[in-house]
């Protein structure tokens, strides 16, 4: 009896790892991890801009530097074929990303431009954070408006 159970459990292993190896699922997970990292650092900056978090020059500059680094990652490459909201569960990536891929790349490049120099720009006082968050937020919105599924 025990042997049968172990054999059944072992037989299920390849099935489970097959599910995890699904490239579309992995791409979605990686994308969402990327956005989560972006969100944590944006949260720090937005919190300081609003005054919810006390201004700390070093922490602000570190968060901004993280965003700069993240936006240099080739994130659009994670939008592989078959990983849109039409093909895969649990993603808000509209199929338009694939039909307008040039514009989608341009919007991501726009986020990179908005982020460039941010780690220096947020230094020198709480008042310097707002404009940086404004630029980054506008880049977030531009892409969400076109390419993120609304709920």
């Amino acid at each position, binding site marked *: 009896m025990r042997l049968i159970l172990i054999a059944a459990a072992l037989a299920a292993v390849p099935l489970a790892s097959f599910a995890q190896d699904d490239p579309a699922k992995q791409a979605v997970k990686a994308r969402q991890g990327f956005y989560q990292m972006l969100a944590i650092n944006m*949260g720090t900056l937005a919190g300081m801009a609003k005054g919810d978090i006390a201004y700390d020059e070093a922490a602000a500059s570190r968060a901004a530097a993280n965003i700069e680094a993240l936006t240099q990652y080739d994130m659009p490459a994670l939008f592989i074929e078959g990983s849109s909201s039409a093909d895969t569960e649990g993603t808000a990536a509209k199929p338009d990303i694939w039909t307008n891929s040039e514009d989608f790349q341009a919007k991501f490049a726009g986020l990179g431009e908005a982020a460039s120099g941010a780690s220096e720009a947020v230094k020198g006082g709480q008042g310097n954070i707002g404009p940086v968050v404004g630029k980054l*937020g*506008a880049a977030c919105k531009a892409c969400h408006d076109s390419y993120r599924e609304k709920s």
Partner: protein
Amino acid sequence: MSRRGPIREVRLWDPLLRGFHWLLAFFVIAAWCLGQFGPAKMTLHFWCGYVVAGLLIFRLVWGFVGPPPARFAHFVRGPGAVARYMRSMFLPEPSHWPGHNPLGALSVIVMLAVLAAQVTTGLISDPDDYINVGPLASYVSSATRSKAVGWHNLGASIILILVLLHVAAVLFYRFWKREDLVSPMINGRKAIREE
């Protein structure tokens, strides 16, 4: 139709109600256009929304304490009255109705309800852009505040349809039924037929 009395011109819409109507029209259109075409940082859209919220609260209060033509109890009617009104609605003659007719009343209620829902979903929306987060978004769950963005978008489409329907109805009364509904909303005076 049982309305066979004499036609006379009366002061129908009070000044506050007229002010409410045109301010609401202005701020809803402004909010809608700013939402669709405005700057990425939606500060003005937010302020338009707050004004609309204030106007809706006024209308709710006015619907209970205002002059009779403004009161919900005066113009909200059952499905029977709506059906009766619709039977004579397409006659090419003025309705001379003393206020919101039963079908128009439905449209008033639907518009007020949709606008109230729109204000609510706007207040709790979080579009994940860190610059346009609704002021009450932190009071709801993260799933709700991101869903609210979708509801707010859907609401914008419904409002567009309702506004177009409203204008179409006014044009239908003006050119098919030969009844001017715009002037009464400006100067308050309308020719009505008493029961």
